Each structure stands twice: as structure tokens, then as C-alpha cells.
């Protein structure tokens, strides 16, 4: 009996591991930055940092900015985040071209919606013929195994 053909689209588990690795990296960086910033501000300000609304809002804005820069920057510049590189994955547009800033921002919005819907957007990867999640549908992107990422095949 002939063996099944190996798909070129990356599946749920590989993408989930890459996602976890990226989050670990981001949390580690954000923690270091937050602690260093708090220590410096406590040393500079006369009354130290008070965890009040403005500080919490600033932290949230900083975190969102960092997350946006991390994902959009890596997708646009390298076609993969560090976690995706570890798992051998790349993200391209559905026509095989590199991901632009607009597509990356739409894909990031899709990720946020997937999180807000308790991961339903991610589960779409399991049943889609091209293994596209909600973020991929919104961003017009595909996630491929790096060894299978011939641009012609991605089209």
C-alpha cells in the first residue's frame, strides 16, 4: 500500500510548540526588562514606583508593543520567529511571497482573537485542508515546514 504523502503545511502540534517557545522567550525578556526598570525607577524616584493605574497601563502598553514588535518584526524580517526556527517552520503569504507588515499585523490580530475565543482560532488548524488557523485566514498566510517551503509549492 502506498504511504501517505507528507504535507508541507505545518500542523497543530509543531505550531503549538513554537508558540510556547516564543512565549517563554518573550516572558523571559519582559520579566528582565520589567525588573530592571522597576529597580531603576525605585532608585531614581523619591517615593519609588507605586503599582497604580498609570503604571499598570504603561506596563500593559509596553507589553503589547513588545509583543507586536516581536511577532511582526520576526515574521516580516526573517519569515519565522525564534520558536518557529527551532521547530523548522516558516510563514509565507498564500502566494508564496514574504509576509508584509500589513499581513503580519492582520495575522497578529487573528492571534489575539484566537486567544480571546479560548483557542478556537487555533483549533481551526486541525480541520483546515491547508492547516490554516484563524490568524492565517485573516493574514492571508500559510505556515510551512521549512524543508518544504518552496515558494512554488506554497502557491
Amino acid at each position, binding site marked *: *500500500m*502506498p*504511504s*501517505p*504523502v*507528507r*504535507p508541507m503545511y*505545518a*500542523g*497543530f*502540534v*509543531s505550531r503549538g*510548540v513554537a508558540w510556547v517557545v516564543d512565549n517563554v522567550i518573550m516572558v523571559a525578556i519582559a520579566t528582565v526588562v520589567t525588573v530592571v526598570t522597576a529597580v531603576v525607577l525605585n532608585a531614581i524616584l523619591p517615593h519609588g514606583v507605586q503599582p497604580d493605574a498609570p503604571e499598570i497601563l504603561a506596563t500593559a502598553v509596553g507589553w503589547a508593543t513588545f509583543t507586536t514588535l516581536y511577532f511582526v518584526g520576526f515574521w516580516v524580517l526573517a519569515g519565522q520567529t525564534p520558536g518557529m526556527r*527551532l*521547530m*523548522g517552520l516558516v510563514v509565507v503569504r498564500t502566494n508564496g511571497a514574504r509576509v508584509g507588515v500589513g499581513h503580519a499585523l492582520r495575522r497578529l490580530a487573528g492571534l489575539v482573537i484566537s486567544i480571546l475565543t479560548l483557542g478556537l482560532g487555533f*483549533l481551526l488548524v*486541525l*480541520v483546515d*485542508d491547508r*492547516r490554516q488557523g484563524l490568524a492565517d485566514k485573516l493574514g492571508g498566510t500559510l505556515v510551512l*515546514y521549512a524543508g518544504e517551503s518552496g515558494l512554488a509549492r506554497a502557491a
Partner: protein
Amino acid sequence: MPAERPSIRHIAIGLAAIGVRGMETATRAGWRTAVIVGRPLGATWDSRVAVGPRAALAAPVSRLATLGEQAEARARDDARKQVAAAVEGVLTNRLVAETVADVLSRGVVDRVAVAVIESPEFERAVVAGLDSPALEQLVARIVESPGLERAITRVLESELVDELSDRLLASEEVHRWVEQIAQSDEVRAALTQQSMGLVDEVAGAMRARTASADTVAERIARSVLRRKPAPWSRPPPMLPERSDRE
């Protein structure tokens, strides 16, 4: 017209010419006679008839030969001594020593050596020597010789090697070398490359397993939702047999 009176000088010259011509004729005649007579004489001398005279002459001829050999040996010995004395004189001559020192001080030898080494002929000669099968065979014979093996074994088993290694390990120079080697960019690059190779190996194994898990998870999800299998999990259509195609 009255005939001119011949001079004494002309008469003498005419007589001399006649004499020379006569001597020449006599010599030729004598030579022919000697040749004609000499052949039977030579044959007679080589025959048994002349054994007695030959034996009588052999002793003085041998003595003459011996004397000649001794004289030649003495002459050679004298010549050798004279040559040695001449060479000694040249080598001990102060002028020669000063000339050699002058040549050395002016760097002539260095220039000649550099010119020889940089010449293509020298390079060709060295390459030809290194490429020659004779050198290869010589090296092979030396390497495979049991004598060399015995010598190396003896050296390695001697206490000298242990003592040398102890001294080397204890010396600060070796420690400095090791530090410099460990801090060199090449070694660091090699270590980094090796570490990256290990990371790549681990990541590769993880990728293969997660890729398999992708397929399994997808199959389970699709079966739960009663969806048809993914296109890549379906077997490709069977190709018709060659006989069918024909």
C-alpha cells in the same frame, strides 16, 4: 750571351737539395725493406724457434716494467703530496680567509641562497624529488621497517618520555600555549559549531516527532468531527500497470 757564373751559395743549396732528396729516397727504401723483412722476422720471433731468445729478453723487460711502475707510483705520490700542500697553503692563507669573511659579511651567500630557493628550477627539483616514486618507496621502507618500530617502542617505553611530559605539563610556557589555543577564535568557532550541531540534532529529532504528532492530532480531530481525511493523508491514486497503459 755569355753564361752567368754560378755562386757558391747556390751550389751549396743545390747539393743540400740533392742530399735531402737522396735521404728521403733512402729512407723510403729502407722502410720498405724493413717491412718486407720484418714480417717473416716477426713470425719467426713469435714461433717456437725463438723461445730461447724471448726468454732471455723477458727478464730484463720485466725489470724495466717494474721500474716503470715504481716510477709511476712515486710520481703519483709526489703529485698527491704537492696537491695537498697546495690546498693546505690555500686554506691557511690569510688572504683566502679574509676573502671568505668578506664574502660572508657582504651577504653574498644569503643572496645566492635566496636566489637559488626562489628559482623555478629549485622548485621544480624539489617537487620532482618529492613526487618521485623512489622517495615514496624509501619512506615506505623506513616506516615499515621493524627497526624503526623497535626504536620508537623503546623510546616510548623509556623513562625519558615520562620525565619530558611531566616537565612539559609543569612548565608555564605550555600553560600559556593552552590558554592561547583555548582562547583562539578558531577553537571557539569549532566549539560553537559543535554545540550548534548538537542543538540542530536535538531540534531535528523534535521536529520529526512533532510532525508525526501533527498528523495524528489532525486525524483524531477529523474523525471526531466526522470530516473527510486531509488530502495528504489519503493515499495517492494507483498508477495503472504498464500492460494496461499499453
